[in-house]
């Protein structure tokens, strides 16, 4: 495949010949278990536990039609089979409450993933995502120093609405963190070094400047602030970012006298990003090699950040809701050729009509759906790639389990059944899979849940020790006990 996995070892040696002189070399010398335990001791989370509480949302676009989910690992879910013991596959999860009249279900259905609510705006969910509820429950005063509170990353192209791709939301439904959509951006956000001044005097004075900024931000977020609650949340968020900046710009120097030269980030991305990645909804041409190459680098960096305990909450997206690409390339899996992608030629069209998206529109249970199957299989392979990175030797923690086993990792998507205008068909049967969350959930099974997403999520939140629940306060919920140990 296009790239080798990135591990701490390879990062220390350099990615693809590019030297990565991380500012966190010392951190990288710790084992994940040591690091996790150290942080657990300083944080307010699961103090009696030997591993930290973590929650991540993993999203893929366009979904898996419900009939194909019934085929189990013999069908498009085949790539998940090596991880079957670490996952609980959930079928028949109903997200119909996420439907918003007048909007196709790519968008509202995808916003319901991890929130179980319809959107409040094109960049705003109907409520918090489950990872953020867990974060606030376990770290009400913020993550331990040195951590990035939430990381949102993804390889995707369609971007006309934020919630097509960003999958972490605050309590008020606003995005919990901005999207990092290239490996370089993600690297910078996770490990990036703030330009420091060579002149120690100037460096000290810069710090004094920042102290005055912090003081003013604290005034606006403190008890005497003239601001209302919502505004204070904004300023508090800003203050948190300032403190992160402060730590990277100044404290690192003090703690790391052996600090090396500035880090060299991964190479610039060569695939489209920004507006050119979504040319008027018409889709783009991309090769399988380019797509997978960038995604895997991103996934490796994200996994590395988790292993280094740099991040405990966030989301990762592989292709957006309603994604539009015209994929080309030979798709191989387990030594066999699964399919030869060439969407535009096979659909005999360019533009939007030539995109793989249309295979979902054309889904017909009575037909082979060969192209859709291949695309869905590919998505499962890439999701499995990321998950397996959290299940390797570098991810083994103090309790003997891997990060995949210890974390609450929720995999979900948008539509299910192809007819995007058919809410009932599309949002009944949305694919879900979850990891064990350190023994809180069953794994190694496939459950026919037959329940609303909101009940599933609230059950998960209860199991994670969060007291907040999604949805209306007066709603009579239903606990899905079958998922719990």
């Amino acid at each position: 495949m296009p790239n080798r996995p990135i591990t701490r070892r390879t990062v220390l040696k350099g990615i693809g010949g590019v030297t990565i002189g991380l500012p966190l070399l010392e951190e990288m010398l710790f084992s994940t278990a040591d690091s996790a335990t150290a942080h657990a001791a300083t944080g307010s989370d699961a103090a009696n536990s030997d591993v930290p509480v973590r929650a991540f949302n993993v999203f893929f676009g366009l979904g898996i039609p419900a009939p194909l989910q019934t085929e189990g690992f013999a069908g498009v879910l085949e790539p998940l089979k090596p991880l079957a013991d670490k996952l609980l596959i959930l079928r028949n999860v109903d997200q119909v409450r996420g439907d918003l009249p007048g909007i196709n279900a790519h968008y509202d259905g995808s916003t319901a993933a991890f929130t179980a609510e319809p959107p409040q705006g094109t960049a705003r969910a109907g409520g918090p995502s489950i990872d953020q509820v867990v974060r606030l429950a376990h770290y009400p005063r913020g993550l331990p120093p040195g951590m990035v509170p939430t990381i949102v990353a993804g390889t995707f192209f369609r971007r006309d609405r934020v919630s097509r791709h960003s999958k972490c939301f605050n309590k008020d439904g606003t995005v919990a963190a901005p999207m990092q959509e290239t490996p370089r951006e993600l690297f910078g956000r996770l490990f990036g070094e703030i330009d420091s001044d060579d002149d120690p005097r100037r460096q000290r004075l810069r710090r004094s400047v920042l102290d005055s900024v912090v003081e003013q931000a604290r005034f606006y977020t403190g008890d005497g602030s003239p601001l209302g609650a919502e505004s204070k949340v904004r300023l508090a968020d800003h203050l948190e970012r300032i403190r992160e900046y402060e730590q990277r710009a100044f404290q690192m120097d003090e703690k790391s006298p052996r600090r090396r030269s500035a880090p060299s980030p991964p190479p610039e991305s060569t695939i489209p990003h920004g507006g050119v990645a979504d040319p008027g909804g018409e889709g783009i041409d991309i090769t399988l090699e380019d797509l997978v190459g960038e995604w895997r680098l991103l996934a490796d960096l994200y996994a590395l950040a988790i292993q280094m305990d740099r991040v405990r909450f966030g989301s990762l997206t592989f292709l957006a809701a309603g994604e539009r690409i015209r994929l080309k390339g030979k798709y191989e899996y387990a030594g066999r050729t699964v399919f030869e992608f060439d969407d535009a030629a096979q659909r005999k069209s360019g533009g939007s009509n030539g995109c793989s998206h249309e295979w979902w529109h054309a889904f017909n249970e009575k037909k082979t759906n060969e192209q859709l199957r291949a695309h869905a299989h590919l998505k499962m392979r890439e999701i499995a790639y990321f998950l397996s990175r959290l299940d390797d030797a570098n991810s083994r923690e103090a309790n003997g389990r891997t990060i995949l086993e210890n974390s609450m990792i929720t995999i979900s998507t948008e539509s299910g059944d192809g007819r995007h205008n058919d809410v009932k068909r599309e949002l009944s049967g949305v694919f879900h899979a979850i990891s064990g969350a350190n023994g809180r959930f069953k794994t190694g099974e496939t459950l026919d849940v037959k329940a609303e997403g909101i009940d599933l999520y609230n059950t998960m939140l209860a199991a994670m020790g969060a007291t907040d629940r999604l949805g209306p306060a007066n709603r009579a919920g239903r606990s899905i006990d079958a998922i719990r140990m």
Partner: protein
Amino acid sequence: MRVASALLLLVAIALVWSAAFGQRPNETAAKGTAADTAAEPAAQRDFEERVAPVLATHCLECHGTTAPKAELDLSRKRSALAGGKNGEVIAPGEPDESLLWEHVDAGRMPPRSRPAMSDDDKRILRDWIAGGAEWPEEHADISRFVPRRGGSNWVRRLTVPEYIETVRAAVGVDVAREARELLPREVRADGFGNTAYNLTVDLRHVEAHAKLAAIVVRRMDTAAFAARFAPRGSSSDANDDALRVIIAGMGRRVLRGPLEEHEIAAYLRLAEAVGKEGGDGAEAQRYVIEAMLQSPRFLYRIEDRPGDHALSSRLSYILWGAPPDEELSRAADAGELSERDNVAAHVRRMLDDPRAVAQSRRFVSEWLHLDRLDSLRPDPKRFPKWDPQLAGDMREETLAYFEEVAWNRDRPLSELMNAQVTFLTPRLAEHYGLQRAASEQANRGGAADAPAPRLVGRATRDLQAFYTFDEGSGTTVRDVSGAGEPLDLTIETPSAVEWQGGRLKVTGSALIATAGPPTRLIDAVTQSQEITLEAWVTPANRGQNGPARILTLSSGISQRNFTLGQEANKYEVRFRTRRSNPNGQPSLDGPTNILYTRPTHIAYTRDAAGKALLYIDGTEQAAGESRGELSNWGGDFRLALANETSGDRSWKGTYHLVALYSRALTPDEVRGNARGPARYDLSAVPARGGLLTQGSTLTIGGDDASTVARGLFVLHELLYSGVDDPPPCVDTTPIPAKPGLSQREIAMQRITNQACAACHTRFETIALGLMKFDGVGGHHERDEHGNTLRDDGEILFPGADRATPFQSSAELMDLLSNSERVGMGITRKATQFALGRPLTDADEPALRAIHAAAREQGGTYRGLMTAIVMSDLVRTTAADEATANDRTSN
């Protein structure tokens, strides 16, 4: 509820009190509101706690500041006591003689359609009038007690454009390039990039703010800046007292309002830290400014406290996208903005400022999502002639068109739908298949008696010769620069050219030249030692050489002052100096891979230092040195197009525009000229005219010119309506057209399908009027399969009981222009952009008032913006103020 309201009121009073007397709000809160309010006159407290909320809750919706019913404005003391068109309504001390009480007591007010007034509230009102209707002068404006509306006004981080303008206004530094490079781009939310809820902050923002602050301070003359605020006689190494004054003054300027004591103290501590490091007062001032530029007060619009400063901030950011200027700040300091007339006068003044035009362009860009054009990538197989430059031309077309309607003509915004004019580059004109009408009046290059400019956004200073090819016939190409004696050109070979609307096509060996030497031009250039040669041309082929002369000032094949020519598949410029040979060599050659047989903008600049640049389509493509002064320029050469003056280096192609300047234009000016469109009269082109006939909106339908996407765009963006999801049984896969099956027929299948008709008749029938426009804005009578195209259809305005038919796109545009619904749609979009938040149901009364007030002022952009900023939504709605609960729960 009553308790909560009272608490809110107490806090509001505390804030007003602290603002009035310079006390910190947290100190006020800490001491408790009871002690503070005890010091207030009882009548004042009674009015604010009891009376004002009743008036605000039950009366101001109709009798507020904007278009008050019966001309009765109960939002302020003066207007309330003055009464309305039925005379005075409040007789102090005599409730039974007061029309206000009479209506309330009789149950006529509030009207039945509104929540009834409780007996308690009625008693409060009657007792207040009976007690003399005391209305404390200090709090003349009661409308701030209007209950919180659905859309909250949070603190708002400055957007990138606001940040740039705020830095410029605060300290006079242009940091636009660096800010756009360092700050993350704003992400659209609910149709606009300034939606407050999505203006989050990431680490990159904090890092960028720090870097930008350092850049700004480096570029400032900080000593001069600080000196403006220094006490008389103090030096740069000021003592603490003087420094305090300087900091207070700089803070008022940079942070857009007076500093509080704790803020001054923080900056003094910073200055002290600089002193401990051995720095002097000047250095301390630099660091203080750097800190101010990163402070939340600078980076956010914090309009939390009712009063003039909050209002001045709202006014300026809404109208200008920039902070208050000194005049507005002075008015805020003096408390003059509590008077409606004063506010109105400032609004008039501010709308005359160029910043208002710039802000209106931002609004249009956001409303119509013009940034989307930057990433248009039509299928090259379907649109092989598509040129990416066209996307930028389309953006400029729409912006120039908006400026024409909204500013140059000051016309009602409804004319955005059907004004018979547009603005095109030669490239876009060719793409549309349009020629300029001969009746178009040429621009006179900025001369005092010039008509409304036909050419938009062009540099005019030091223009020496300007040819726009608008003559349409004859053998003279007129110089319309207005720079002096015209340097007209004579077509010496009429049979070798063809006049076309706004262009001259050279089909054979031609010569188009001045009769004699252009002495005025030669003198100006040799004096300045600078020049710009500019041409919009379409080469006939990629093989002509010599170089083939596009524009030359020369005498034969080896003597020249300059020549812009084509050498096969590249452009070439020869320019004579004392260091070149008489033939102007060595030449500056453009790259070989970017010479196309489509309209192309070429510019060559040479500055006095000898730096020569060649731009193609506004982008620098070659750079070289052209050292040496110009004293050897030939004084008897003729200026010529299309050939060497000796007739042996002919060039074939089309001229759209030629200009010569006696200075080197800046890169920004070259880009502006390359993008600057020309005005096209469309009175003879009924198919076009109006926003919906421009490429910027027509491309919304994608390559297939989707009638669904276009129709929904009109429904959502203009008619503020929507439709439900398609029914479950319907396959929404787009059906391609083919011979014998046009997109119209496919659309009609949906429109006539019983399952689809209920919705599709609400939007897709509208888009039938655009069916002659393809996916990239071209206009055709037949589609690519040979099917005949039609543009008749019908429009069902939301709320109407029947559809209105139209026979053509022109009729559709007229219907939209005349539609009250469309007018309100524009009002809503402008209001949303102004407020920076999605509108809610609670905004409806205010929106209606705004729209009515705008119509009374002619429905123009000026009228609309005036109505918005004079409305309660802007003038009086409280920000997201702290409640007592907020304070204690943190």
